[in-house]
């Protein structure tokens, strides 16, 4: 079965550093998302991306966050200056014409 691939699986960084989380969505999908899940809390929507631009973003997705599709396969989330409260599991997801959203296994980000 096709899958969404995320790298790295774990990322440890110092507060104030920039991080880039990488995702390879399913190849024929056109809609891409980032969600995050703080330990023990609910999954939260961050941003949706379609046709090379942001479709929707949540209040969490402030100026410190950006997304990019630098080539035909990768979809990245950049956090410019990480804060302690950015520590979470970040999930990339994608879907095609239907609403069946496929999630990657996530990147556990720890900000020290």
């Amino acid at each position: 079965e096709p899958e969404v691939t995320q790298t790295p699986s774990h990322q440890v960084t110092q507060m104030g550093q920039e991080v880039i989380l990488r995702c390879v969505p399913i190849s024929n999908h056109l809609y891409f998302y980032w969600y995050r899940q703080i330990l023990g809390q609910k999954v939260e929507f961050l941003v949706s991306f379609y046709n090379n631009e942001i479709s929707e973003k949540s209040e969490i997705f402030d100026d410190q966050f950006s997304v990019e599709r630098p080539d035909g396969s990768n979809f990245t989330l950049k956090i410019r200056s990480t804060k302690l409260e950015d520590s979470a599991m970040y999930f990339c997801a994608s879907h095609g014409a239907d609403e069946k959203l496929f999630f990657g296994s996530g990147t556990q980000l720890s900000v020290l």
Partner: protein
Amino acid sequence: QQQVKQSPQSLIVQKGGISIINCAYENTAFDYFPWYQQFPGKGPALLIAIRPDVSEKKEGRFTISFNKSAKQFSLHIMDSQPGDSATYFCAASIRSNYQLIWGAGTKLIIKP
């Protein structure tokens, strides 16, 4: 109004029993209601989803019951098996934007 409330927080069911998880929402604009299953260390995986034009949807041992007037929907797992032990999330979205609003999750344990 954007919240989706999920209960119970945790649930223990004997093997072969029926597991029932409930969700309630406020926003009447929601028109897509999926359930996700998440195993430790993995991303959420779509289990089953329903639209408000039907009151029930069944796929194998999994059934969604939907009550539009009460703004509630529930997941029923028949003949629960130890392999069903996972965290289950309900979610809701407005179809036009696919921005999922998630419940807090239910940790389900099936006792052999």
